[in-house]
């Protein structure tokens, strides 16, 4: 319930595509454009980027939007996570920084996750770390997957189930 509320507030606080985008952003019709360099040409070609990024804060001085603030979220038991689904999500989102079992060329920005079960962290704590790690460490580089609306509550529950079962 609280998650839906957070989501709703986020949605309301997020301007529609293009509305609040600063004038120096590379967008066209509210869509994120990527520059393409054309050999022997004095002009750039602009092609639509595979994702629209306009709802997030940019480096523009004219960008008046706020960063979503650190948000606590109390996960209610039981966790009811699907570890197999969590694994797929972890390989998609987390492996850039964390070493996961079975990966030959893992990220090293975050810690290794192999044998995570041994730490016996409460599920709610692991959930909060993924939902918004800034609650524990304001300077963390780990993205706030819940607060920024990147992952849904069930996604995070699945990730918790996956991590808590790594032996």
């Amino acid at each position, binding site marked *: 319930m609280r998650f839906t509320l957070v989501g709703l507030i986020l949605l309301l606080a997020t301007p529609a595509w293009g509305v609040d985008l600063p004038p120096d952003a590379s967008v066209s019709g509210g869509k994120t454009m990527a520059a393409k360099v054309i050999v022997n040409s004095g002009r*750039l070609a602009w092609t639509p980027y595979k994702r629209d990024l306009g709802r997030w*804060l*940019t*480096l523009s001085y004219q960008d008046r939007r706020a960063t979503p603030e650190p948000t606590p979220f109390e996960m209610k038991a039981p966790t009811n996570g699907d570890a197999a689904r969590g694994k797929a999500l972890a390989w998609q989102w987390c492996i850039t920084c964390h070493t996961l079992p079975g990966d030959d060329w893992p990220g090293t920005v975050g810690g290794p996750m192999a044998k995570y079960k041994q730490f016996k962290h409460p599920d709610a704590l692991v959930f909060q770390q993924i939902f918004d790690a800034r609650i524990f460490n304001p300077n963390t*580089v780990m993205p706030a997957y819940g607060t920024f609306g990147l992952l849904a509550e069930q996604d995070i529950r699945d990730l918790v189930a996956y991590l808590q079962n790594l032996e």
Partner: protein
Amino acid sequence: MKTLFSILAAVTSFAALAQPEIPYREYEPLDQYEPHVSGDLKLSGSYQYWKDPAKLDYRMAGNPDENWKLNWKFMDPPFNQAVHGGHFALDRGEKLFKQLDAHHRFAVCLGAKKGKLKHLRAGYPRWRDDLKHVAGLEEAIEYCGARQGRVLQNGSYDNSAISLYLASLGNGQPIAIDVAKGPLKEAFERGRHLFHTRVGAFNFSCSSCHTHNIGKRLRGNVITTPYGDAAHYPVYRTQFVLQSLHLRFAECNLDTRTQPLLPGSQPYTDLEVFMTALTNGYPISVPAERDW
């Protein structure tokens, strides 16, 4: 009806005024940097390995776990002797430059003193009286081209080719911009702040990677120091053809799910000033290439 409208208008403008000046933002702790390439010794320490571009260690270049310590300088000349797309771009740049400079108006517009072109690259970004702001070399090329009716958009192949040609004339010259005073100091400070400002879907700042996680792996990419990067741009990349520094910023933005800005925008120019100051004292080495 009309009164209702003006009351509404008054209320809205009051609401706008009452809004806090600066919306909630997050910054990484603001580090100090030295406006000289040797400042890296206090950051990543990798400078000792790439200090002398002619004397890099072949073994480190060939070792994927070690080569980040060379700051990819093994892909710059003189170490890198390969003939690559950067050389073709250089030829194109020379041809275009000579066309535009037939009456020496182009070189003068760019700020070459007494026709001396070899100091141009090392002294940009600089304050331009005509533009009334600090501009990078590519912005100046676009501006001076336009004065002759030639379209040379910032970031385009032809613009970067000319920039590359001018840089090549200064090969070996140390980058030298003075950020100790005036508008360049202000731009440097703004750039330093931007470098630490968290943006995008992942809430990263440039410093999240390039200051605080140097040498760490993001899957297949190893993060390198921000010192010494500005001396090899524009750079040849197979995937991106010819990439200006501003387009590299845009790439790092896209890679971290952040809406990029336009090449030549003020924030990117401020970042360019910041990163160029961190390259002060390092010799220009073009044409360079980088991985894909």
